[in-house]
């Protein structure tokens, strides 16, 4: 009886093969040559501005996200299952952001949400994820008070008061100047301007000699730029997400250096600035042309994939996915959203910078992690200046 069961050598061979296969997959976990993740994908939602005024931020972030998705899946995904990032375009509009967030969270049943990248859209999408305590990470700085109460919406770019401080540090300590002019838009620019006013008391030496505002999508700001020039500042801060103000500054022949906020720093906007992308200093985190030591690996991988140089938003896109995946790996497969959200509330080491999501501003970045770049004839160079304390 037993003989017949073992009788056929073919069957014995088949059984042993299966055992061998089983044991190898169980113990092999070295990422370099692990099997490609297989099976039912884990869906992560992503809302980015692929079109509209915010495309200058959304498109680079998307590249970073896709690169991270590919790398994570190549390294075995999460517990062997691949991740699938479903990217939706909010067309730089909060209504779209709300509808897309609704569809992703309730129809696609994503386990986490990435983006959007502009303030209005973040608050709109946050209204969907916050009640469910869904893990939600955005490539933008914390801007409005309501964001402080949304404990599961983390930020991988500095809050606007940190941006403002970084701008003032350079003007006060690197340039050591007194008279500063400001040209800012009515969205992102408005928020950072509010922060600048709030912290101006800690930089007594600096006086804002002209503050000119223009509406988002304005196409002609020469008159505002002329008003800034008329107050003969020693430097002009431009806080906007478009190339228009930079072109206006050049057209009215303002010769003093321009200090721009991180929101203007992407190759899309540099292209839009044309030849006004010169003598512009930007406090940011990643200068692809001259990266910090532990950013080199990411820069190389990005260049190999897209044959382009990455910047802040590409790195932010990468970090977003890495942190989300780390949370999924560290929590049980059937963990509830709130559990994953709570796991994320810890320090993280990203390509862009180091974070501590436990902070009240749900970001935890330091002023010292800023690097300062300078645009010379459209090319980024990294300045030695760093904030000391």
């Amino acid at each position, binding site marked *: 009886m037993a003989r017949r069961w073992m009788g056929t050598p073919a069957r014995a061979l088949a059984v042993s093969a299966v055992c061998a296969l089983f044991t190898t997959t169980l113990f092999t976990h070295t990422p370099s040559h692990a099997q490609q993740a297989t099976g039912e994908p884990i869906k992560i939602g992503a809302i980015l501005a692929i079109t509209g005024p915010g495309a200058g931020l959304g498109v680079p972030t998307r590249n970073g996200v896709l690169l991270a998705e590919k790398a994570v899946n190549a390294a075995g995904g999460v517990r062997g299952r691949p991740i699938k990032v479903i990217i939706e375009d909010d*067309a730089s*509009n*909060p*209504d779209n952001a*709300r*509808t897309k967030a*609704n*569809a992703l969270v*309730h*129809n696609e049943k994503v386990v986490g949400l990435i983006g959007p990248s502009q*303030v*209005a859209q973040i*608050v*709109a999408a*946050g*209204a969907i994820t916050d*009640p469910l305590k869904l893990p939600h990470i955005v490539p933008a700085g914390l*801007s*409005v008070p*309501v*964001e402080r*109460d*949304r404990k599961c919406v983390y930020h991988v770019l500095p809050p606007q008061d940190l941006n403002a401080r970084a701008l003032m540090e350079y003007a006060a300590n690197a340039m050591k100047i007194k008279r500063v002019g400001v040209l800012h838009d*009515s*969205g992102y620019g*408005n*928020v950072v301007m509010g922060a600048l006013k709030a912290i101006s008391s800690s930089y007594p030496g600096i006086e804002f000699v002209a503050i000119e505002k223009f*509406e*988002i999508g304005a196409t002609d700001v020469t008159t505002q730029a002329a008003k800034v020039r008329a107050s003969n500042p020693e430097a002009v801060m431009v806080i906007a997400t478009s190339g228009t103000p930079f072109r206006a500054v050049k057209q009215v022949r303002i010769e003093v250096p321009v200090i721009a906020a991180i929101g203007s720093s992407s190759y899309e906007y540099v292209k839009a600035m044309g030849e006004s992308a010169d003598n512009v200093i930007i406090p940011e985190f990643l200068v692809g042309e001259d990266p910090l030591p532990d950013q080199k690996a990411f820069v190389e991988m990005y260049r190999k994939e897209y044959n382009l140089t990455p910047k802040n938003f590409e790195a932010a896109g990468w970090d977003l996915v890495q942190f989300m995946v780390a949370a999924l790996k560290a929590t049980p497969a059937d963990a509830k959203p709130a559990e994953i959200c709570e796991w994320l509330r810890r320090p993280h080491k990203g390509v862009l910078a180091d974070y501590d999501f436990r902070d009240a501003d749900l970001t935890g970045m330091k002023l010292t992690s800023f690097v300062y770049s300078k645009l010379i004839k459209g090319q980024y160079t990294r300045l030695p200046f760093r904030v000391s304390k």
Partner: protein
Amino acid sequence: MRRPWLIVLVVVWALLPWVLGRHHVDLLVFAAIYTIAGLGVGLLLGHCGIVTLAQSVFYAMGAYASAIITVNLKLPASLGFVVGMIASGVIALALGWPVLRLTGFFLAVATLALAMIANALFFEWDWLTGGTVGIGAIPKLGLFGFVLDTPLTFYYFAWVVAAIAMLLVHNLVAGRTGLAMRGMRDSLDAARVLAIDVHGLRVTIFVVCAVLGGVSGSLFAHYTGYVSVASFTIDKAILFLLIPVLGGAASIPGVVVGALFITFVPELLSKLGDFHGIVFGLALIVVVIAAPHGIVGTIRQWRKRALDESTATPGEANK
């Protein structure tokens, strides 16, 4: 209203959200909100022959009133609705009094100018409206102990409010005011000669339209929980104009059909990206040229014509 037909409609309406997916219920809530704003525009267009592009202004005022009252001042939501309606009505009266002296193109263009001015001010007065950043975390509405935080619960509340608005507009149109409006529309001079205060009536209807816009804005604020100037652009003003024009300006069912059209068409065409805008533009052109009475109006005409043909005995000339 024919009794049985109405009862069937109510039953279907009550069961619908349990049958449809959450995303479609969300669209039906927006259809209710747009119906209320569209009723106002339909009243002006269908009964007074006035094209208004300023409804997005009053829609925004209702939304901002609710947001400011509940978020900044932490006062109850009902006060937000009331303040929204009063604010819309008062501003409509203040602006309407001079502007409604104009007629035809010039009045329509004047309302467009008002919409543009309001949009620029919503941007600029960010201390009030939050500008592009807007106002977030608007609390959910509570009603008799229920919290209306899901599309399903809000669906019933929004459509009941829409039904009340429809009843009020129906009464207005069926009553003395409605008669005076339709007379004014056909001949302004003849109406004035019959002691109808034409200017006063047009301003009154403009105020009613604005208050309806305010109510729908408040509903929008409490449903989405977030308002920003990007939701109150000129596109929205044209959308509100589309509702009665496509549906049938002179009829209340027409406004409902129009509201359903502009909420579901973008959803059906969402695969094609921004294609729905073209459909709206072409639909407006086709309706204005070929079917001036809108979808419902044209159907009524076909049914009436079919009715006439069937009852007209052969040989008798079509009277």
